[in-house]
């Protein structure tokens, strides 16, 4: 327990920073992204293979801290928008990264300095590695969510009133659409409609920022964190949960088995819930997780045990790998773990955008470390 509600565990720690992403780091990054996604973002596999193919050809992708970007250097954040279930069929061409780069450069009349992942969760944590490689740009060690979220305005620059445009959306035929909307919420609506016209998924570059602008909103060190999580989980033989706790601070809610799962498509999202019945020391308890792509709340006896923006993640009980909502099924043995939210989301403005009420829950956000003890 801690008395400071906004204290998140140390992130952006420069002592163990990743400087390059090669084959092994990319594999670890993909695993880390399943943990940080909180159930959303899709299976990272396509992104993993795209990045793997690129680095086999071009060598490892350099990773830089946002402080290494010159004040006037342009950073482009990028990711896939739409249905991961379409992208497993209509895989990107590989030209998307260069098109995103050149279109935004043309719009702004400046050269790009670096690429950055839009979100650090699921597929989108890995895809920008392929694009950085394809454009010859380094990747910024950070992102704009510190996890995965479903909508464009749910990015940290939005809290600083930084516009998400000029935004470019590109399909596999290299058709580019440039958006210059009224505000970030309008962009979300326009982009969602464009995505469906393009067949259900597309790639986008958005929130272009200078180094000086980016230093405020970027959640630093998340690429390194995800790689370390992946490596930790992959190599920990005895106690992957303890190892995970040492990396990010893990608050376990329940160890149990999935006894019910319900999924439906509504408003372009996968909504549903999963019920976990306690086993071992948690026998007799029932915890319900509700999700909209990502896991939003964990409930027990009608009380919220944890809510967004803290990262509620279902972890395989034996391996501690993350389980995306599409893959939850009856009988899985899981640990429901909570990783404290990145600090920007815990501010009043942050909670307005991604707190439980932004997703329609009539509860107040309480930081997980105020109500739960850590694994260790």
């Amino acid at each position: 327990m801690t008395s400071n509600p906004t204290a998140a565990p140390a992130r952006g720690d420069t002592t163990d920073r990743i400087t390059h992403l090669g084959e092994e780091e990319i594999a670890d990054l993909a695993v880390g992204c399943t943990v940080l996604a909180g159930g959303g973002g899709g299976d990272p596999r396509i992104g993993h293979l795209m990045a793997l193919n690129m680095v086999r050809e071009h060598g490892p992708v350099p990773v830089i801290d946002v402080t290494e970007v010159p004040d006037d250097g342009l950073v482009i954040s990028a990711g896939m928008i739409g249905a991961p279930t379409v992208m497993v069929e209509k895989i990107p061409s590989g030209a998307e990264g260069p098109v995103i780069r050149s279109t935004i450069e043309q719009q702004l009349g400046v050269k790009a300095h670096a690429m950055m992942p839009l979100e650090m969760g699921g597929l989108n944590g890995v895809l920008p590695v392929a694009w950085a490689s394809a454009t010859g740009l380094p990747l910024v060690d950070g992102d704009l969510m510190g996890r995965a979220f479903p909508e464009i305005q749910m990015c940290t620059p939005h809290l600083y009133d930084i516009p998400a445009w000029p935004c470019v959306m590109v399909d596999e035929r290299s058709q580019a659409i440039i958006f210059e909307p009224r505000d970030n919420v309008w962009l979300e609506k326009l982009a969602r409609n464009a995505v469906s016209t393009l067949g259900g998924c597309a790639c986008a570059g958005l929130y272009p920022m200078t180094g000086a602008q980016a230093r405020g909103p970027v959640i630093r060190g998340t690429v390194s964190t995800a790689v370390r999580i992946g490596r930790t989980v992959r190599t920990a033989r005895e106690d992957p949960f303890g190892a995970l706790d040492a990396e990010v601070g893990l608050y376990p809610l329940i160890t149990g088995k999935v006894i019910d799962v319900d999924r439906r498509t509504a408003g372009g999202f996968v909504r549903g819930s999963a019920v976990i019945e306690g086993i071992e020391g948690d026998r007799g308890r029932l915890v319900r997780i509700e999700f909209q792509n990502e896991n939003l709340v964990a409930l027990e006896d009608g009380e919220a045990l944890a809510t967004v923006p803290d990262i509620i993640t279902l972890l395989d009980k034996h391996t501690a790998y993350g389980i995306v909502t599409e893959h939850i099924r009856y009988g899985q043995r899981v640990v429901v773990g909570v990783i404290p939210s990145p600090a920007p989301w815990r501010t009043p403005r942050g909670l307005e955008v991604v707190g439980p009420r932004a997703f329609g829950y009539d509860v107040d956000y309480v930081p997980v470390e105020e109500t739960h003890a850590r694994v260790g």
Partner: protein
Amino acid sequence: MPASVDLRIGIDVGGTNTDAVVLDRENTLLAKFKTPTTPDLTSGISLAIESVLAGLDEPVERITHVMLGTTHATNAILERRDLYKVAVVRIGAPATTSIPPLLDWPADLAEVVSAGDVVIRGGSEISGDPLTDFDADALAQFLRSVQGTAQAVAVTGVFSPVSAEHEFLAEKVVHEVLGDIPVSLSHGIGALGLLERENACVLNAALVGVARKVVAGLTESLQRNKIDAVSFLTQNDGTLMGLDYVLRFPVLTIGSGPANSMRGAGYLTNITDGVVVDVGGTSSDIGILINGFPRESSTAVDIGGVRTNFRMPDLVSIAVGGGTRIRATADGITVGPDSVGYRLRTEALVFGGGSPTLSDAAVAAGRMSIGDPEKVAGREETLKAAQAEADDQVWNAIDQIRPSRMSVPVVAVGGGSLILPKDLPGFDDVLWPENYDVANAIGAAIASVSGQVDKVFKLGNRTREEILAEATTAASDEAVSAGADPDEVEIVEIEEVPMAYLQDPVVRIRAKAAGPLGAV
């Protein structure tokens, strides 16, 4: 050719044993035979047929049908032998070019299988509209470059489960350039997920040579034994495929072993919904029957290091079998994962050997009576602890595969199944049907014929009912063309999955029809 169904031979060629049974029209078991599997397929099948016929008092003329289940295709992939060189064609450029075909294959398998690959322009959107025009010239050019090396061609188009048009165009070009070469089209093999479907399609093409050997072996065995019968192979869902279908879709025989056991277990107990535990010498396969058919896996299945997505039974395999070794170490009792395998009858304690096994534990606990029970004296504690551990592993595996919290029956089959406990908390009693040891061959003999559709439909102006009718009719037609009796075919499974993020509603429908063999 026989005019109607009379006596049938069911054969299961497993990794360790080959089983054969003869059933009559009422499915009464007339004869059974079990023999170690031989490396040479034809002689093994011949021996099994010959031996089971020796135990039968009926004239060989009464045999009208022969059904074979085999793990031969699986072993060919695992051992990298007899595989065809495949020209790999993907239709999807400019999409998909960021991940080349076979990128995630084990290098040695890719080396053996690939005759070269190409990604040409074409493919479809999820709506069925073309992504771009189909590029026949680029395909022809590629095919000319592999002429002489490629023994088969695998063609996979983006969203071909929605629209297979470009795959058919490609097939035509292949025949124009390479003549009479086997061509596998992915839309008939796997579901959505381009890379997994492409992998399954390439494996399918690579297995055409194996399929030809199996079909030739079976045909020759029948001739040697003077049997004039219609013959089939069983596929992954436990239903039959005609020999011409086997030559087109050999990859679909890969999961037929466990599927046969499950179908056999269901048949022997009259249970249509329940859990089946098939215990062999080294491991147990646990699966689930829904409506009399094995439930299919909803996630990708790894075959020889390759991720695929064609229909396979949903199985949990654990290293618990009759020959599983028990060791007492400083840290406690360990169970497996290794096994004495086929040496059970020399190495187990009850047979005078020195390796404690789960069979010994079962003898000590009174579950099984083989060998000399006196020989386990003094080891009871260790054996009991090991058995409790094995029981726990079995219980956990069964619990993870059952569909809900409801109590379900558990059927035990396979040569090693007597090591299982008689009751499992939270489940109905464990049932051991008569002839549990040849359930897989019985499963092959009683198999019905099925047809399946797994496709994405655009709703357009049509109603949901019209689309469902189209899907179910297509599935029934496929079952009938595969040999099912048109009057008895019924829809046994239907699943609808709506897709997100689209303007025009589309829905993925999976429908399966099955029926008994029609009069031939």
